[in-house]
């Protein structure tokens, strides 16, 4: 069985400080995996390593069995590794149509096309509507993103990532900052992500993690403390200790 995403002995140190310590993860295709850990456990560094913002000090990152460790951010996206952001990173002046069309065009290899209008070539329109529809964004798709309510922006954050047709999708706290009333819509959207996409959920909120994830890795001080099913993690006294702040592993 090939794994959708695998890391082998991933290490990252800044000067003397080790931010990621020997992290080895194995995620099969279609997995619903959560990555949890207290503040400062190295979740952000790990995402940056996976997506290519940072270069690992040592270790390998494999996407569908191929080494992607030396590729840049956008090359990894093209191969199918995409992330969302904890704090919305959108294009305030662009409409949802334009935003999602960008991702679709780029994936179809027409991002450098300057002589044809967006949406006149290829199945861009069908695809972009499919994505917007899945996240219930078609009603307000012709408004500039900056005018959308926060919950809608949060959905667009995931929608544009999904439009790159990722094989592996990293969701960085998808429900962060969403008011209670709009929260269910986000959780629903996350739960209904396509089954063949491998999803890695980086989250604080245990409720969401336990509802959504099949397996969980607990990150502490840059290293994987333990990995297991939801039940195993729930029952693990060490995890409780970490979250109650009673000590490091």
């Amino acid at each position, binding site marked *: 069985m090939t794994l959708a995403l695998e890391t082998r002995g991933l290490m990252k140190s800044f000067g003397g400080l080790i931010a990621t310590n020997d992290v080895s993860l194995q995620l099969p295709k279609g997995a619903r995996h959560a990555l949890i850990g207290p503040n400062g456990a190295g979740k952000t560094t790990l995402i940056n390593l996976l*997506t290519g913002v940072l270069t690992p000090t040592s270790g390998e990152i494999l996407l569908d069995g191929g080494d992607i460790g030396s590729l840049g*951010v*956008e090359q990894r*996206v*093209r191969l199918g590794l*995409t*992330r969302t*952001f904890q704090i919305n*990173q*959108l*294009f*305030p*002046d*662009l*409409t949802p*149509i*334009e*935003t999602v*069309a*960008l*991702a679709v*065009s*780029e*994936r179809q290899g*027409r*991002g*450098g*096309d*300057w*002589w*044809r*209008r*967006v*949406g006149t070539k290829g199945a861009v*329109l*069908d695809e*972009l*509507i499919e994505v*917007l*529809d899945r996240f219930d964004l*078609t009603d307000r*798709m*012709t*408004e*500039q993103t900056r005018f959308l309510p926060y919950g809608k922006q949060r959905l667009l954050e995931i929608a*544009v*990532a999904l*439009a*790159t047709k990722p094989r592996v999708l990293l969701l960085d706290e998808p429900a962060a900052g969403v008011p209670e009333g709009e929260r269910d819509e986000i959780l629903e959207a996350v739960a209904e992500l396509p089954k063949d996409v491998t999803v890695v959920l980086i989250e604080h909120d245990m409720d969401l993690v336990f509802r959504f994830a099949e397996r969980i890795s607990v990150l502490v001080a840059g290293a994987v403390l333990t990995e297991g099913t939801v039940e195993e993690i729930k029952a693990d006294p060490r995890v409780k200790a970490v979250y109650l702040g009673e000590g490091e592993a």
Partner: protein
Amino acid sequence: MTDTTDQPLAPVARASRFLAAEARWSWLEIAFWIAAFGLAFVFRSNHLLFAEIAILALFAVSLDLILGYAGIVSLGHAAFFGLGAYTVGIMARSGWGDPLTGLVAAGVTAGILGFLTSFLVLRGSDLTRLMITLGVASLLHETANKLDWLTGGADGLQGMMVGPVLGHFSFDLYGTTAYVYALSVLFVVVLGLRVLVHSPFGHALRAIRDNPLRARAIGIPVSRRLIAAYTLAAVIAGFAGALLAQTSAFASLDVLEFHRSADVMLVLVIGGSGRLYGGILGAIVFRLAQDGIANITPQYWQFWIGLGLVALVLLGRDRLEIVGRRLVGRVLPWLVGEEKAR
């Protein structure tokens, strides 16, 4: 405008309609071009001024591509303008006076410089970019100053022999040929850019300006797009410089001076950046204002330009834009189809 009338339409059709509407020619636009070309038949004594406006507009439109669309603040856009001017100037002095081939050559040399220097502006903060662009322009200015056997140094390039456009239309004293020629080049460039800004490439530039981090994270090769945009902007600035040298049969260090880079930025800001016609509108306002002020106090118009800049920024460019937009919206509600719901 957002479509409210066609709710029953399928989302795909609505999206398609929205994108088409964004790119559609508005009546205002069509009227503008008809009027602009129509001016070639009247007000003959002002044609030289009109030609200058068209050239300045072209220069500003080229800056808009990198500043308004791609978000790169440049203090040295005159480098490409000046290189274009000197390219046709030196060619014309050496006996190659055909305007159109000269224009192309100027675009090529400016484009090469743009391509080479684009790698320098990719990285770094706004400040680094300011310094690099300023540095490149200063470098070119100094080079032109020192290579006086080639450029005429501080005296300027004397003895340019510019031939007739297309072998037929010689440059006349009134500047009618100059105006039609410059306006035609501007028109063709705007036609091209109209297509470009509504293409995936054009949208990608706006995305990069808004948020380069996310642009990269959805698979846009940011560096490659910026290199292309910067190079293209350099080509267009080279055209503008070439037009100035050809229509005035002269090129001097003035084409590379700092004030040119600063002026063109002002022109663009007056007209509104990131909207293609902003540069043209700005050029008209700037040049007419300059002319008006110069008639009153010939030496000190720069003071009023400076005051205008300070006031513009202090009042807030956004706020002025909203006011202007509302005015246009009130007076000509049926003409703003192109202005979008933004």
